């Protein structure tokens, strides 16, 4: 009964092709106006951070990847850093999240993350290390940068792109409408966030 199974190879190739087509389970989609997904992650100083500890403060989550040209657009000219400083000045907690898996672009150990923070002059409240991608998946983070704003009550009030210019070209910063700035301004003024969602752009998060 052992008959030659000559067709196996092309079929295996077919299976492989199919495997390539099959996406992993879709990311969770957090919702505007609903409690932001809770998380617990270790930061670059070895401290475990949770969303709950920032209750009462506005929290910005920024997905980042140093090697991504779109992230570089915002860091190389100091735009992101000044945004972080401005937020800190307003008492806003800024969490930069690295969800790159080990070995993938943007992955950083705690020491590397701190070195990068120093070198780039970045000023987040903390850099969360999420090598397993748990925080990223909970938020449905797709790109770097991908931005989320949580109000003091823990409600998600903004998610999407950092601005309206899907480009890695630094020249595109000029004249761009920064949605995070707009959301923070709305919160500061006690208004509802006028533009709570936008399409994120950038490199894919390297889960």
């Amino acid at each position, binding site marked *: 009964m052992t008959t030659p199974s000559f067709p*196996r190879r092309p079929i295996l190739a077919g299976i492989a092709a199919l495997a390539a087509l099959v996406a992993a389970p879709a990311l969770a989609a957090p919702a505007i106006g609903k409690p932001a997904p809770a998380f617990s992650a270790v930061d670059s100083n070895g401290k475990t951070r949770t969303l709950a500890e920032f209750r009462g403060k506005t929290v910005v989550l920024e997905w980042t990847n140093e*090697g991504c040209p779109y992230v570089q657009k915002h860091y190389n000219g100091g735009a992101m850093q000044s945004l972080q400083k401005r937020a800190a000045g307003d008492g806003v907690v800024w969490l930069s999240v690295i969800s790159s898996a080990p070995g993938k672009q943007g992955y950083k150990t705690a020491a590397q993350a701190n070195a990068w923070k120093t070198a780039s002059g970045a000023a987040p409240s903390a850099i969360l290390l999420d090598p397993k991608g748990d925080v990223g998946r909970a938020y449905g983070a797709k790109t770097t940068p991908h931005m989320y704003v949580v109000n003091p009550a823990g409600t998600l009030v903004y998610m*999407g792109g950092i601005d309206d210019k899907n480009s890695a070209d630094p020249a595109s910063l000029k004249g761009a409408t920064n949605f995070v700035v707009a959301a923070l301004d709305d919160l500061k003024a006690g208004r509802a966030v006028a533009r709570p969602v936008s399409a994120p*752009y950038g490199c894919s*998060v390297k889960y």
Partner: protein
Amino acid sequence: MNLRFAGLLLALVALVAPAAQAAPVDTGHLKAELIAQTQAIAPGQTIQVALRQEIDKGWHTYWRNPGDSGEATKIAWTLPAGWSAGDFVWQPPEPQPAGPLVNYGYSGEVILPMTLTAPANAPVGQTVTLKAAAAFLVCEEICIPEDALLELTLTVQAQAAQPSGRWAAPIARALEAAPRKADLTATFENNDQGLRLAVTGAPLTDADLAGSYFFPFDGAVIDHAAPQAIERGPQGLTLGLTPSYAFQGPEPPQVMAGVLKAGDAYYEIEAQAGPLSPEASGLGPPAARSGGLSAAGLGLPLALAFAVLGGLILNLMPCVFPILAMKAASLAGHAHEAQGARRQGLAFLAGVLVTFLALAGALIAAQAAGAAVGWGFQLQSPPVVAALCLLMLAVALNLSGVFEIGTSLQGVGSGLASRGGLAGAFFTGVLAVVVAAPCTAPFMAPALGWALTQPAAAALLVFAALGIGFAAPFVAVAFAPGLLAKLPRPGPWMDHLRKVLAFPMYGAAAWLLWVLTLQAGPMGQARLLAAAIVLALAAWLYGLSQGRSQALALRGGAAVLGALAVLSALIPAYQSAAIAGPEASGAVAELPYEPYSAQRLAELRAQGTPVFVNFTAAWCVTCQVNEQVALAREGVAEALAETGAVYLKGDWTRKDEVIAAELARHGRAGVPLYLVYDRAGAEPVILPQILTEGLVVRALEAAAG
């Protein structure tokens, strides 16, 4: 005169001058160039030009909506005053998974056409060099923005330029392949049933909608990574989408524009918020397409080749091999009688061909009459199974030496070239085909599946090819004296071989008894066992008579008993076994499964659950072997548990129109058929007919992503 001369001169210039020209620029991970459909352009003329990318293997560039990440390819022209260029005519994108994300883009070669219009005052006779800056985001695992400054040189001529040159055809093909606007009506609704997009219109009526997909122009309307459930309707389809960001905002979208992939066609649609057309749903998901080797697209030559190969493999099946081995061995002693051997070979071939064609004819006639039948259909009828069982028993008893057919084995040589020998060979061929029917060999399935969807002539050809492949080894032995000489001289070994080979035949008889038990229950089994014993008695009596000169009484008794056995096995009709269908194929392992139903499958696919479907039958040897050597293994059970895949089993032991239709959909005429549906719920992969544990496990893992 002057004008004509000028024209001639211009023509000459056009011949000498460099034609539409562009130097490809290597930007690092792709080569980019501007190409044109014409070599020249006339004042006021609009021609087709294109940005061509040759992307490195493994790297991608992006569609107008890049999906979850990435950035669309851009171009910015620097044109002299009065010249203008249109937007890209985007090619249909490919969904490109990246971890949990899905992007829309291109790989390999992509041509993005656009129009280029010269002003009415363009200087005739001059060449113009047009410049454009192209920006690409090229991604593999990582993304790199790359730029290229490109040039296109065209000659301005008085007459309108006609398409010519190397790129005329590729650009025409790209324009042809681009999604087109069609007479389609599209609406969408976002409510507690999710976001649904309904599209109706003539192009979708009766279209193959497998693999349909909606690519939105706006990156914020749907979750690109979520599978899109397809439901067909009388006049179109409804896609189940997962709403994204835009629907969370204060002003949810009122329009969703994009490209609908319907089967292999791409249409540009603009869906309005509003009630869904009832004509766009109600018919369930489309027939899946095969990812592996299947009948779809199998042409006649390939089907014939598969049929020959399948026929060859049939020789090795356990119910066939003993008969053929004995017949071949009987030739051995008579290698010197080359002519007689050849005749026997031909008679055998004739027997095989006649039987295959008769079966094919019956099958085609039954199909034409509207019956849902396929290969192996004979075995769905209990009387046929009972008859085959008795036949196997008779052959086994013969091999055991209980009785002889015609001349005895020892005397077979004298009759080799005789009529009796030829008839014997012919009927050996008939017998071999009859007993081979349960064994659908690999390669046979696609060929037969193809054949049964073809006109009768093509179908008969395929069956004939199957017969030729089946008969080939025996005929080869008969025709090649060299081979015959290699067979050992006859001797006592032949008698031993014959008696040993009786046992696979007893096994085949026992197996058919089991099949009948599943079909007709314990009462049927008791009846067949009784018939078998009476037949054995008849055979013994007949054998006894063969040793004597005056044995009319014995022969008469044998004939009466034999007839009694056969008749009692065939008449009256068997009652259907009371046991539940799915039990029928005898679950060999504790592998948890659910009975197959189209509804259950559709449900699971809509839920995004991977599904393993096994179409099997008790009478299908290959199916049973696969159950034992692959499906009953622990690895498969673990893979099912790990991937959360659901195992559906469709039992074809008895006639089942639903299963026959499902087999036909996948281009098959018989079992086994193994399908693996992935989470996306779209087109299943068809596994080979011979399974291994690893193969099933890998397929399941692939399907789970």
